[in-house]
C-alpha cells in the first residue's frame, strides 16, 4: 500500500468533510469519524515495515519524499489514534456550537498535516506540512472567540517565528550539502565545523522548541491549550506538541546522528547537557505554575509543558534508557493528557463551559465514568505503579541516578511531587467534596464522550501492566538510531542496574490491595458522610456558603506565587509592544506634507551622487 494514499485520504477527507457538511450533518459526522479511523487502521498495517517513495515532484526541484519506518510509525500511529478519539469525543461536544463543518475540517486538516510531518522523508516536505499544521491549528485555537483570540495570535506569531528559523536551517543545510533528504543528510554533519552544527541546532531548536513548548519558548501554550475547544486541546496537548518532540529526535538521532551530538561541546557546556538542563527547568517551573492555576484546562496546559520537559530531558540525555524513557513518556503522555483534557471537556460540556476549579466540586456521583477516567489519568500523570507513566518515569529516574546527574534527577523527582499536588487538586476540585447546588441536575457525559475516555483509561492500565508492548517498538527504533537496545520482555525491563517487572509488581499491588480491603472490611466501619453534610465546628454551614474547593493549597499558593510569575511572557509582550511603538515611530516619516516627500526623493538622489563623486563607491 502506498504512503501517499494515506495523505490523500487525510487531506482529501478533510475537504470532503466540509462539503458533506453542507449536505447532511449526519453524513459529515460519520465521515469525519470514519476518515480518522481509516487513517489509524491503515497506519496500523504499516507496523514493522519500512518503505520510501517519492510522492510529488512538482515543487521546484525538490522531489518530495514520504518514508515510513518504526520510528515514524510509532509517532504517526499514536497521533492517528489520539486524533480519531478526539474526533469521536467532538461529536457531542461540538454540537452545541456553531461552525461545525469548519471545526471538523480543520481538525482533520491538523491531523492530516501532523501525519504528513511524521511521514515526510525530506526536510522540505517536513516544512510544508509543518506550516500547514501551524495555520490550521491557528484557525482552530481561536474557534471559541473571546480570550481565544489573543491565544491564537500568540500561538501563530511564535509558530511563524520558529518556522522561519527552521526554514533558514533547512535551506542552509541544502546550500551546504545539496540535499534535504534525511537518509542522504544523515551523518554528513559529521565533518561540519562544530560552529555550523550549533548554528543548525539553534535554528531547528527555536522551531521545535516552540512547538514542544520548552521553557523559555513555552508562552503560547497555556492560553492556547486552555482556550481551544476541549477535544482539540486533547489533540494539541497529546499529539501536536509531540511533533516538536518528533522533530528533536529526528534532528538529533537521524540527521545529526548520535555520535556527532554527543561530541558536541564538552561537559557542562555540551549540547547534550544544555538541552537536558533546559528540559529540567521546563519540568520545574511549569509544574509549580500549574499548581497555582484555578482554571482546569490551564492547569493541564502547564502540566503539559512540564511533562514535555521530562520527554526532552530523556531524549537529550542520550543513553539508550533515557531515550527509551523519553519516547515512552511521549506515548504515555499522549494517552493520559488527551484523556484528562477529555475529562475536563466532558465536565465543561455538562456544566456549560465551567472550567473554574473554585466553583466545581462533587461531581463524582453525577459523572462517575468521567471521574474514573480522571482518576486513572492523574495516576498515569503522577506515575503511580501499574499505570504507564510509572514505567517511563522509573526509567528516567534510574538513568539519571546511575549516570551521576543528581541535579537533573532531583529536578525530575521534585517535578513529580509537584505533579502529585496539582493533579490531586484537579481531581478533587472537580469531582470530590460538595456538589454545588446548581449542578444537582447534571447528567452523565454522553456516550460519544465516555467511549474515548474509557478506552484511553484502559490503555493506561494496559500499557502500565504490559509495558513491553510499546517498549518493543521503542527498542527497534533505538537500534535504528545506533543505540544499544534494552533487554525487555512483555512485563518490563531487565538489566544489571535495575530490573522492572510489572508482573511482580502487579501481583504485589494486588495482594496489598486485598490486604487493605480485608483490613477495612474487618475494622469498624467509619461513618459515610453525604455530599451536603457540612457539619463543622459544632454547627451546620449553609449549603452554598462554604465550598471546600475554593482556595485549595491557599498557603502554598501565597508562598510561591510571587516567584512564579511568567516573566518570559512579560518579556515577549514588551518586545511586541516595542515593535509596535517602533512601527508607529517609523510611520512618522510619512508626514503627509508633500514638500518633505519631494525632499526625500532629492535627498536620495543627491546622496547617491555625492557618495559616488566623493568616494567612487560604485
Amino acid at each position, binding site marked *: 500500500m502506498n504512503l501517499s494514499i494515506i495523505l490523500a485520504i487525510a487531506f482529501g477527507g478533510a475537504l470532503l468533510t466540509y462539503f458533506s457538511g453542507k449536505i447532511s450533518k449526519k453524513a459529515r459526522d460519520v465521515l469525519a469519524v470514519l476518515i480518522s479511523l481509516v487513517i489509524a487502521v491503515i497506519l496500523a498495517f504499516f507496523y514493522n515495515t519500512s518503505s520510501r517513495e517519492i510522492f510529488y515532484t512538482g515543487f521546484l526541484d525538490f522531489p518530495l519524499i514520504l518514508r515510513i519506518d518504526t520510528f515514524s510509525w510509532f509517532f504517526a500511529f499514536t497521533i492517528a489514534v489520539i486524533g480519531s478519539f478526539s474526533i469521536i469525543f467532538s461529536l457531542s461536544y461540538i454540537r452545541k456550537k456553531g461552525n461545525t463543518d469548519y471545526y471538523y475540517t480543520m481538525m482533520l486538516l491538523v491531523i492530516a498535516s501532523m501525519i504528513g510531518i511524521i511521514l515526510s522523508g525530506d526536510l522540505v516536505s517536513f516544512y510544508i506540512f509543518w506550516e500547514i499544521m501551524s495555520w490550521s491549528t491557528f484557525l482552530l485555537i481561536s474557534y471559541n472567540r473571546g480570550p481565544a483570540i489573543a491565544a491564537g495570535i500568540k500561538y501563530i506569531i511564535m509558530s511563524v517565528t520558529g518556522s522561519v528559523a527552521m*526554514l533558514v536551517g533547512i535551506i542552509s543545510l541544502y546550500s551546504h550539502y545539496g540535499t534535504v533528504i534525511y537518509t542522504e543528510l544523515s551523518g554528513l554533519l559529521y565533518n561540519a565545523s562544530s560552529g555550523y552544527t550549533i548554528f543548525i541546532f539553534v535554528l531547528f531548536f527555536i522551531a521545535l522548541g516552540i512547538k514542544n513548548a520548552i521553557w523559555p519558548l513555552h508562552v503560547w501554550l497555556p492560553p492556547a491549550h486552555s482556550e481551544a475547544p476541549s477535544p482539540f486541546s486533547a489533540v494539541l496537548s497529546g499529539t501536536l506538541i509531540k511533533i516538536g518532540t518528533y522533530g528533536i529526535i529526528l534532528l538529533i538521532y537521524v540527521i545529526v546522528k548520535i555520535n556527532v551530538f554527543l561530541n558536541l561541546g564538552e561537559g557542562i557546556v555540551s549540547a547534550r547537557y544544555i538541552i537536558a538542563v533546559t528540559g529540567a527547568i521546563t519540568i520545574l517551573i511549569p509544574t509549580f505554575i500549574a499548581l497555582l492555576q484555578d482554571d482546569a484546562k490551564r492547569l493541564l496546559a502547564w502540566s503539559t509543558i512540564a511533562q514535555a520537559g521530562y520527554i526532552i530531558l530523556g531524549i537529550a540525555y542520550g543513553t539508550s534508557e533515557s531515550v527509551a524513557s523519553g519516547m515512552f513518556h511521549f506515548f504515555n503522555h499522549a494517552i493520559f493528557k488527551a484523556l484528562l483534557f477529555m475529562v475536563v471537556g466532558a465536565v465543561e460540556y455538562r456544566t456549560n463551559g465551567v472550567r473554574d476549579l473554585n466553583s466545581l466540586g462533587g461531581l463524582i456521583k453525577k459523572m462517575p465514568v468521567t471521574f474514573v477516567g480522571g482518576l486513572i489519568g492523574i495516576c498515569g500523570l503522577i506515575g503511580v505503579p501499574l499505570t504507564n507513566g510509572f514505567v517511563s518515569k522509573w526509567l528516567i529516574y534510574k538513568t539519571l541516578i546511575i549516570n551521576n546527574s543528581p541535579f537533573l534527577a532531583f529536578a525530575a523527582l521534585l517535578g513529580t511531587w509537584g505533579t502529585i499536588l496539582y493533579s490531586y487538586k484537579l481531581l478533587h476540585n472537580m469531582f470530590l467534596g460538595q456538589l454545588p447546588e446548581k449542578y444537582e441536575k447534571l447528567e452523565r457525559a454522553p456516550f460519544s464522550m465516555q467511549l474515548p475516555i474509557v478506552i484511553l483509561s484502559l490503555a493506561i492500565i494496559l500499557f502500565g501492566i504490559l509495558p513491553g508492548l510499546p517498549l518493543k517498538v521503542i527498542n527497534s527504533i533505538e537500534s535504528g538510531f545506533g543505540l544499544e537496545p534494552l533487554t525487555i520482555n512483555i512485563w518490563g525491563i531487565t538489566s544489571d542496574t535495575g530490573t522492572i517487572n510489572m508482573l511482580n509488581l502487579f501481583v504485589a499491588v494486588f495482594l496489598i490491595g486485598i490486604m487493605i480491603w480485608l483490613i477495612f472490611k474487618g475494622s469498624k466501619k467509619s461513618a459515610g458522610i453525604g455530599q451536603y453534610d457540612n457539619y463543622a465546628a459544632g454547627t451546620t454551614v449553609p449549603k452554598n456558603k462554604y465550598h471546600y474547593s475554593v482556595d485549595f493549597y491557599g498557603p502554598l499558593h501565597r508562598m510561591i506565587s510571587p516567584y512564579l510569575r511568567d516573566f518570559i511572557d512579560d518579556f515577549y509582550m514588551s518586545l511586541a509592544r516595542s515593535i509596535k511603538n517602533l512601527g508607529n515611530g517609523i510611520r512618522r516619516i510619512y508626514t503627509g506634507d508633500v514638500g518633505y516627500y519631494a525632499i526625500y526623493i532629492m535627498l536620495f538622489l543627491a546622496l547617491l551622487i555625492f557618495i559616488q563623486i566623493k568616494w567612487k563607491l560604485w
Partner: protein
Amino acid sequence: MVNPILLIVIPLGLAFVVPLFRFISKKIEKFIPFFALLANLIISLTLFPHVLEKPIHVSIGGFLPPLGINLVAGPLGILFAMLIALVGFLVSIYAFAYIKEKDQEKYHILYLLLLTGATGVVLTGDIFNLFVFFEILCISSYSLVAYFGDKPGIESAVKYLIQGAVGSSLVLIGIGLLYGQFGTLNMADIASNIHSVHSISVFIPLVLLITGFGVEAAIFPLNAWLPDAHSSAPSSISAILSGIAIEVGLYAIVRVVFTLFGASSILTFLLFLGVITLLIGELCAFNQENIKRMLAYSSIGQIGLIVFALSIGSLSGINGGLFQLVSHTLSKALLFLAAGYMIFRSGSMNISSFEGMGKKMPYTSFAFTIGAFSIVGLPPFIGFPGKFMILKAALFEQDILFTILVFLILLATIIEGAYFFRVVQTIYFKGEKSTPGQEREIAPLSVLIPVFIFVGLIVVIGIYPKLITEILESSASELLNRADYIKNILP
C-alpha cells in the same frame, strides 16, 4: 505567429473607441476592457511558447533598430504582459459590479490606458518609448486614484502627481544625458556602448533613472505617495496599482540596471535598500487600523523583498525575485479585491468594522484569508515557493552578510504574519457570535468569479510552482545575459 504589437494596439485602440459608445449604448463600455484584456491574454499566451525559444523583435514603421523604435518580446516582457493581461482581465470583471459612479466611461478608458501603458513599458526596446508608456501609466493612475472625487482621493492623487512628476522629470533628464552621450535611444545600442558605470557621466544617468523609476516602484525613501494613493483609490484600482503599477516600475529599474547599464556594482546598494524598504513597510503596517493602508504598507514591504531578491544578482536570486513578484501580484490583487468588497459592505476601512465578516460574507472572507496566508508565505499557497526561492538564493551565496540580511527579512515576515493573522482573526472570530438579523450577504458573481480565479491560481501555482518556473528561468537568464540581448537586436 501574432505580432506582439497587438498587445499594445488593441487595448489602446479600444480605449480610444470607448467614448463613441455613448452614442450607441451606455451599457457596452464596461465590457470593453474585458474584451481587450481577454484578447491580450490570449495573444500573450500564444506568444509564450515562441518566446521561450527565441525572443521576438518587432520594429515599427519598417525602420530597423537603432533607427526606429522596436519592441522586444522576450520571456521577461511576455511574462509581464501575461501578468498584466491576466490581472487586468480579472479586475475588469470585478469592476462590472464595483464601479457604479456616474462617469463609468472615463473609468474604463483610464483603466485600459493604464494597462496599455504598463504593457508598453514591458515590451518596448527603446528607452524613450519606455518613458512615454511609463507616463501613460502614471498619468492614468493619478486620475484613477482621484476617481471617486472625494477629498482624500483628490489630496492623495495630487501628492502622487507631484512626486510622480518629480520622478518622471528625473527619468527624462537621465534619458537626455544618455542620448547626449551615445546618440541613440535604442536600449541595446546604448547597452553595447556602455562599458562601465564607473565613469561619472554614465553613473549620473543611472541614478537618475533608478530614482525616477524608483518613485513608481515605491522603493524607500521614494515611496511616500503609496500609502495615501493605494488607500484612497477605488479598490479595483488599488489592486492594479499594487499588483501591476509598482511591479512595472520595478521592471523598469531592473531593465535599466541589468540590461541597459549592466551595473552589477550597484546591486549591493540595492540589496540593502530592499531590506530597509521591507522592514519599514512591515513595521509601518504593523499597527495600522485602516485595512487598505495596511495592505499598501505591506506592498512596500513586498517590493522591498523583491528588490532584495533581484539584487542578489544570481540566476536563482532573480528567479526567486520574479516568482515573488508574480506571487505578490496575484495575492495582493486578491487581497485588495476581497477587502474592497468588504469595505463596500461594512462602509468603513477600519479593520474592526470587519468583525463577523466570516459569517456575513463567507466567500469573500475565505478568499481574503487565502490571500493573507499566501502573502505571509505559508504553504501550500503561492507565497511559499517565492519566499523559499529567495531564501535559497540568498543562503547559497554562503556569505555572512546574506545570512544577516536573511534574518532581517524573516523578522519582517514575522511582523507581516502578525498583522495579517490579526485581520484574519477579526474576520472570523471577533465580534458577537451571531446576532439575529445578520444575513449572509453574498457578493455578486462578478466579484466572486475573479476573486476565486485568483484563489485558484494562488493554490495551483503554490502546489505546482513548475507551472511558471520555466518562463521565470528564461526571464532571469534574459536579464543576466546582456550580451545576448544586444546581439539579438543588433546583429
